[in-house]
């Protein structure tokens, strides 16, 4: 029987350091990232037989990317379910490797969200670049002035109403993340902030303040995922894909309890496959489009009970040195968020599992197992959730 836990591994990574690249194309950023990630793995173009990508631009498809890179992959995945698409990609690559259809794939992403002045969170209809509303669901939603931040803010508002969660507790997430960003020379914002700074700043969509929202940057990256056989000959020790789960959540015909997010469905398959428990997780990369995303995700992944997220994120628990360090690169809240951020979760988890920051404050001590959870779409309407659990030997 195939040992699923040691069937596929991340063997190469590259994060494009740019946060602003008006002189580059998205395809160029992906090309540069793929080349460097393969070099990191000690592999070449000839070793790659799979290509996985997602884009918020309808034109930047796997097809165009294969053309640009002049590749003829035998496994192609253009799954695009929002910011967490890349956790889905890793899960699908694992499946293809186990099925014998894939030896080595690149997962890549880039966006020029900042230099093209995309108002990702507050652009309303214009954020899609096509003002004509589809008959449904858009025609029952967008005419009311939805924004991405608004769709998350509505969940935060109800969380506060039901459980007494406070703006100060949400701010703890932004503060811990900024502390981590202060150790990342590539992060967009590195100056430490306080809870007071957050709650005294401008409200974008109540109850969320500006620092409750992710930054908007350009950027990109690539991950090389390979079979155990390929992984054995790579430069770094493998970071195994121990478990994966995926889910979607939506309005359920107007009746679903929106306070439970897709992580509630995706975490059990991932933990079950990996054969680990929450206590085994040494660090987590939690998609942080907004602070409320992190709080809801931690609850629904089962790190604490529903409604207890406010207490859980307080008291330094999420900092390096705390019980569950998260987003040690500074996350989307402080480091980078080029439209979609799921690929960066895989990159930082891999760096931590490689102990790349050994003997520096950024390294999570004894980091052997990491969890990544990507959320894409909007909690208040419909979204996807992909959980992956990674581990080193």
């Amino acid at each position, binding site marked *: 029987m195939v040992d699923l836990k040691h069937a596929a591994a991340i063997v190469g990574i590259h994060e494009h350091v740019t946060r602003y690249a008006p002189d580059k194309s998205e395809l160029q950023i992906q090309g540069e990232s793929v080349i460097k990630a393969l070099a990191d793995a000690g592999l070449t173009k000839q070793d790659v037989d799979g290509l996985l990508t997602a884009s918020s631009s309808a034109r930047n498809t796997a097809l165009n990317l294969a053309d640009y890179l002049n590749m003829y992959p035998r496994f192609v995945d253009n799954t695009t379910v929002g910011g967490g698409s890349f956790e889905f990609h890793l899960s699908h690559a694992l499946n293809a490797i186990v099925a014998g259809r894939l030896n080595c794939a690149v997962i890549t992403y880039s966006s020029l969200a900042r230099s093209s002045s995309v108002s990702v969170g507050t652009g309303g209809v214009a954020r899609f670049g096509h003002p004509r509303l589809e*008959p*449904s669901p858009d025609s029952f939603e967008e005419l009311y*002035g939805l*924004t991405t931040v608004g769709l998350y803010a*509505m969940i935060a*508002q109800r969380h506060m109403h039901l459980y007494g969660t406070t703006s100060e507790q949400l701010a703890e997430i932004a503060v811990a993340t900024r502390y981590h960003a202060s150790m990342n020379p590539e992060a967009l914002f590195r100056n430490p902030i306080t809870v007071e700074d957050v709650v005294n700043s401008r409200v974008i*969509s*109540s109850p969320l303040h500006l620092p409750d929202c992710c930054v908007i940057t350009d950027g990109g990256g690539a991950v090389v995922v390979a079979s155990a056989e390929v992984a054995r000959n790579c430069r770094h020790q493998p970071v195994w894909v121990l478990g994966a789960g995926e889910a979607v959540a939506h309005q359920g015909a*107007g009746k679903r309890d929106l306070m439970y997010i897709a992580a509630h469905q995706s975490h059990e398959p991932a933990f079950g496959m990996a054969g680990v428990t929450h206590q085994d997780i040494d660090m987590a990369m939690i998609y942080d489009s907004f602070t409320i995303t992190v709080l809801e995700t931690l609850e629904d992944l089962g790190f604490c009970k529903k409604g207890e997220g406010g207490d859980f994120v307080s008291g330094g628990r999420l900092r390096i040195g705390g019980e569950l360090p998260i987003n040690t690169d500074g996350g989307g809240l402080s480091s980078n968020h080029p439209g979609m951020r799921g690929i960066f979760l895989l990159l930082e988890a891999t760096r931590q599992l490689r102990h790349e920051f050994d003997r520096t404050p950024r390294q999570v001590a004894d980091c052997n197992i990491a969890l990544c959870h990507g959320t894409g779409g909007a909690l208040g309407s419909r979204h996807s959730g992909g959980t992956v659990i990674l581990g080193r030997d």
Partner: protein
Amino acid sequence: MPEWNKPLPTISGETKPYWDHCRRGELLIQKCDSCEEYQFYPRGICANCWSNDIQWVTASGKGTVWTFTVTYQNGTPGFAEEVPYVLALVELEEGVRMFTNIVDCDPRSVSIGMPVEVTFVRATDQISVPYFKPAA
């Protein structure tokens, strides 16, 4: 009245009765004759049991605020001029929730659980948009 500069809904065969009745000041929702479940937004199948025994029924137009946000920033024309405005999910008496704006009140007076009722604003000759205001 000023020219409507917000997005307008696109009407399809399966949603036309909803918009036709909005024009007459009636809020329609759907109920399945097979499983008796209500659903929103309207669609051509029952989202619960996948039958096509869908009936249009007139909703009472009364409900409560399930959650909301006061929007202070939206770059879209039509909304940019209206901030701060209230984006809300209202739970109708029939048990389904719909997106809307809470109008005819101070945005800061809106709270979860607040009773609201439907009100219609004429956007064009063809389209009236349902909003909600504090219940009388």
